[in-house]
């Protein structure tokens, strides 16, 4: 209970001094190597085959409160409900892929410079504090009777509730967190993190840095009070949080190419999540993107209008359609792939949700309004963020022995205009 004794005014002064020295940027970028107010783990897996370890840290010398939500993105076909899917073409004819994209909320707090970790399948219980590890003894977490982890460390959950809830073993989706103060978003830019995806059989790990979005600290903006996070800041002037990138770019080995050193076959899985998120309305955000690939022979291929809702986690071999990939071996050994949100408007809600539009009336009935009265009708298609993961398969060996490596994508430019929106409960 050491924190209760602290003077909040002195802590505020500490933030002032720390802020003057350590302010993150006024440049409008989403990054994976700096701290921010909104933090996004695009790929979180707990599917019974692999599990994910989250590390979240406070980069500042101040006490920080955090609100998080897991978004379960598992999808099933509209009629054939037991068939899992990523996009509509994964389903039988005349069916569409329906993603749940429902959010599970939780809150936690971090003391100055504090790192914490948890396993997503089990979650982690509040422990204030639990006994520290000792030299010469194993330093480990234990499972309590509820099946949640108890780990050495000082962990703070609200009202002594479960620190981080378990997601179980049928979860694929993302984790988003934002910094708060008394329950409202707070532009402290203190959060950074990493995610480690681990195979439960072989212990093969992939690790990537979470994506962070810095907030405008100017109190004149409405970030703090209106329950809408707007990603519409260039780093100067008005706006709430930095814009999402204009495009993502990464270099991948061609799908199915044989690695010269190991003889393994390489496959890449791409995960994309929308920058916009309608948490309050419990609706998946519609995404429209264009893929353009360039191989080492300067040849170019593209996927012009690819659409998905809420979350995409797909091998390059299955882009644009399952088994019909274009970024494959034979067209070149390397692909540099650029992913750009299409400059079109789509309906975020209403009876025509997901359809292209030019005005709100194109979205039909029941167009919703956000917590700050933003009309969630005809808006620019969402920006995207993502991460990629490589799988090295040795011929003749079982897939659970695949070597894996995750990596962050590069960002080019920034979106403009409306940007993106996250509505909060």
């Amino acid at each position, binding site marked *: 209970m050491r*924190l*209760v004794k602290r003077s909040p005014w002195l*802590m*505020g*002064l500490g*933030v002032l001094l720390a*802020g*003057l020295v*350590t302010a*993150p*940027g006024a440049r409008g*970028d*989403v990054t*994976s*190597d*700096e*701290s921010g107010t909104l933090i996004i783990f695009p790929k979180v897996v707990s599917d019974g085959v692999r599990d994910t370890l989250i590390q979240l*840290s406070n980069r500042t010398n101040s006490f920080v*409160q955090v609100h998080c939500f897991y978004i379960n993105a598992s999808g099933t076909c509209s009629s054939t409900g037991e068939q899992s899917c990523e996009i509509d073409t994964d389903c039988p004819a005349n069916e569409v892929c329906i993603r749940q994209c429902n959010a599970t909320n939780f809150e936690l707090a971090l003391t100055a*410079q*504090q*790192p*914490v*970790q948890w396993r997503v399948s089990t979650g982690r219980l509040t422990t204030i504090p639990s006994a*520290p*590890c*000792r*030299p010469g003894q194993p*330093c*480990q*977490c234990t499972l309590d009777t509820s099946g949640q*982890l108890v*780990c*050495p460390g*000082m*962990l703070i959950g609200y009202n002594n509730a479960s620190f981080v809830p378990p997601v179980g073993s049928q979860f694929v989706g993302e984790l988003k967190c934002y910094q708060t103060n*008394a329950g409202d978003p707070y532009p402290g830019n203190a959060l*950074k993190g990493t995610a480690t995806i*681990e195979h439960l059989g072989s*212990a*093969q*790990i992939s690790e990537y*840095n979470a994506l962070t979005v810095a907030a405008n*600290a*100017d*109190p004149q903006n409405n970030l703090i009070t209106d329950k809408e996070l707007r990603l519409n800041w260039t780093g*100067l002037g008005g706006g709430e949080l930095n814009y999402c990138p204009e495009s993502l770019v990464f*270099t991948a080995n061609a799908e199915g190419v044989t690695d010269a050193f190991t003889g393994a076959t390489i496959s890449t899985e791409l995960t994309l999540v929308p920058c916009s998120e309608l948490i309050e309305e419990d609706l998946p955000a519609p995404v429209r993107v264009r893929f353009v690939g*360039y191989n*080492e022979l300067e040849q170019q291929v593209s996927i012009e209008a690819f659409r998905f809702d809420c979350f995409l986690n797909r091998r390059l071999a299955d882009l644009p359609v399952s088994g019909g990939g274009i970024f494959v071996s034979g067209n070149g050994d390397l*692909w*540099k792939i650029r992913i750009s949100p299409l400059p079109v408007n789509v309906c975020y809600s209403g009876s025509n949700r997901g359809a292209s539009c030019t005005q709100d009336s194109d979205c039909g009935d029941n167009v919703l309004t956000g917590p700050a009265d933003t009309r969630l009708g005809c808006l620019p298609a969402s920006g995207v963020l993502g991460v990629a993961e*490589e799988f090295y398969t*040795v011929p003749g*060996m079982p897939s659970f022995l695949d*070597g894996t*490596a995750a*990596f*962050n994508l*590069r960002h080019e430019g920034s979106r403009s205009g409306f940007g993106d929106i996250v509505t909060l409960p």
Partner: protein
Amino acid sequence: MKKMWQAAARMGVGAGMALVAMAGIANARSTTNRPASIVVWPKIVVDTSARWLVWPTDTRLMLSSTNASGIKQAHCFYINATGHCSNDGAGCRDATDCVGGECVPSWNETDFDVVLTQEQPLAWYASDGLARGQFPLEGPFRCNGVFAGLQCFSDAQCPPGVGCNIGQSNLGSAIPPVPEDPFIGALVCIQYTGGSDTKPDQTTTRDKLYGDATIVQSAAPLRFVDPARYNAIGLEATGKEVSDGRLVLDGDEGKYQSCPGVLILSHLFDGAVDPIIPAVQYGTELTLLPCSNDFRSQTPGRAVAQFLVFNEFEQRFSTSRTVDCLFDSQLSRIDTRNPARSIFNAGVAGSLAGQTRIRGVGGKAPLGSGLLGVARASLGPLIIPSSAAYDLHQQGNGGRDLMILP
């Protein structure tokens, strides 16, 4: 508990004042997210005969151009940080690699040029390089790829689907293999304009390069592959012409953006039991590279890295180590030769997760003290190795650094 949250809530006014002050401060430093004009791979490991390491290891390097129109040239330097044993001259990282001898540090660079066509990706293994004849677009009026030996003036004169290169090409490129095996070191590439008037690129199409590295362990008998991939670090150009071969890394005051003031490493402490598979434990290697280097006089950058380590109890530990040319170490060997007593050991630190802030100080003028780095986590003991590389976080702008070109 509720009082604690209320107390924290009252911080708002003071903190708000702080944040107003923060709003206008510009961000200009290294990046692992954006294309840039200087690209740095801080860790390249080659040990194809497993002399140092348990398993044969090589590093696959990727360099890509995002320039939408026209070639870009990269002038690159392999930095060889491999030491050599005093008794038999074999390559070494430290004395443990020399039986009965000392590991004598050494540093040298090998430079080469790569010409990239518009939007082109290239990849090569560090142990192999890419020789003339192995580039995908060898030269004008040559068939592409492995058919570069065939002269052509149209696609019809090349094998089907191969194409005749009558436009941009990789002509002028040659990537040597790293100078020895085993090898530990780094790679730095600087974007040039290319063409006849070649100089560091400060034009409107600067900042078009990015790189990746995958450290790959593999062994034929066990038929496994353990890849660990990270993003190379970029430093963007400011647009100010470089005429004297001195690349000043100092934000808007210099020719390129600054190196970070502080690097931040998120990690599990060495020896922490994996929360997912309790039979294995975490270990983390940290690699640090000085931002400054004098390639003209063959003088490596040097700085002292100060480490500030935080555990999950908000407790703080500290240590420091000299970074001379390149620093590569298991975390729990940074401050002691006995890892069980290290502040990076989970038993000493007291918790599983840690956050380590690293600041470079004490650089030797005119070179600076900035540092760049990468981390690699691994699990063990395992029959088949498992590791993952990841980039460090950063905070604030560092001081002035300098790269001096030959």
